[in-house]
């Protein structure tokens, strides 16, 4: 169901690419090539074309992103409200884990 908590966790090995795509689209609509470049720039990850489109098709099927009309072959995608909710919940859960990990590192390892 779109936007339900933990939606991205059902993506299995495509959860990582899906998070990167949603994070990129949170900054505005993009087509495949622009997505790939943007993700490379902010995450240092170059998603392979097949992986990118597998994740895109799953996100679209769940209504987390939607395709915009286009006059050329490059079709842009944008985040939906359900996608924004799913991304926010996913990132908050990740932040919680990151916070716990960092706090324990600071307490136990002085870092």
């Amino acid at each position, binding site marked *: 169901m779109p936007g339900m908590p933990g939606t991205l966790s059902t993506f299995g090995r495509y959860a990582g690419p899906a998070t990167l795509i949603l994070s990129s689209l949170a900054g505005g609509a993009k087509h*495949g*090539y622009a997505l*790939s470049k943007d993700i490379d720039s902010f995450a240092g990850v170059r998603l392979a*074309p097949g*992986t990118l*489109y597998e994740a895109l098709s799953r996100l679209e099927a769940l209504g987390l992103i939607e395709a915009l009309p286009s006059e050329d072959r*490059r079709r842009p995608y944008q985040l939906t409200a359900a996608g924004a909710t799913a991304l926010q919940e996913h990132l908050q859960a990740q932040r919680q884990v990151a916070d716990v990990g960092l706090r324990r590192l600071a307490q136990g390892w002085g870092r």
Partner: protein
Amino acid sequence: MAAPEIRAARLVRWYPAGWRLRYGAEFTELLAADLAERPRCWRRTADVAATGLLARLSQAGLGGQRLAGADQARASLAALGGALAVFLTAGTAVWSQLLVGWQWAPPSTRAAAVATVLMTGALLFFLVLAVLAAAPIGWQLARRGFRAGPSRVSAALVVVSLLVLVIGGRHMANGWPGTGGHPWPQRGLVPGGVAAFGWAMTLSVTSYWAHPAALLAFPAAELAWMVVSPVALAGLATGLARLVRRLDLSPRVLRYQARLGRLAAADMAVFLAGAASWVLAGAHGPGALFRPGAIDVAALAAMALALAVGWQALRRTAYR
């Protein structure tokens, strides 16, 4: 078209038609740009191979992301039907070999006797399941009056394939090795005509393909039948699968078919256990009767694979 675009277009062909229709153009653009930047990259090729396979499995109802609504149940049931067709072709070949032996002499080993009885019972149950599964599909086709184009083509493929198999099978059954003098008075487990028909239908499942010189010594009609019959079997399975995928079966009928599918999977397991008990026992009677060969081991492997594929399809038929 520039070289990267040509290469990209070639790579995209690996994806199924339905996927290409939706994403093909934009994906080709992205691939072409990637190819222009990195002309040689085995990771990209491997990625396209893996995700293309995943898309194919998804369209076939066997893996990857689920299709929308009833499409998933329809695709998975069609995949189960395909797996069942492969299973029954390999299984009938093994079964008919045992029946030939049984027609000439009582089974020399307990394994052969148990296997033949189990497999015969399982095949009878398959027949019951086939009738139960065909009833709502036939009813829907009859109610529609074969108006829908693609369904009509699929129905025609089923009818033509069946005609070829029945007419050809009955003709070729005359050469059944169980025909002739019968020293054993009880004359087999099942009627000779049924056994002969099963043998004729699966004449192409033979290790003679690995011995072309011996194969060429066969009568021309038999050789032709060994080529035509698998094509007709494939036509029958394809036609049925297309019918299931294209007919607008109600959720209730889809759930009913899925329940029959689970029974079919259990029946496949029983049949496979019977065949395996005979092949693995390895013992045989006088002469070549009841002797399992390499083709039976191959058939066993094909059946096990078909059961695994069918089970995977069944797991994805859930539809509410």
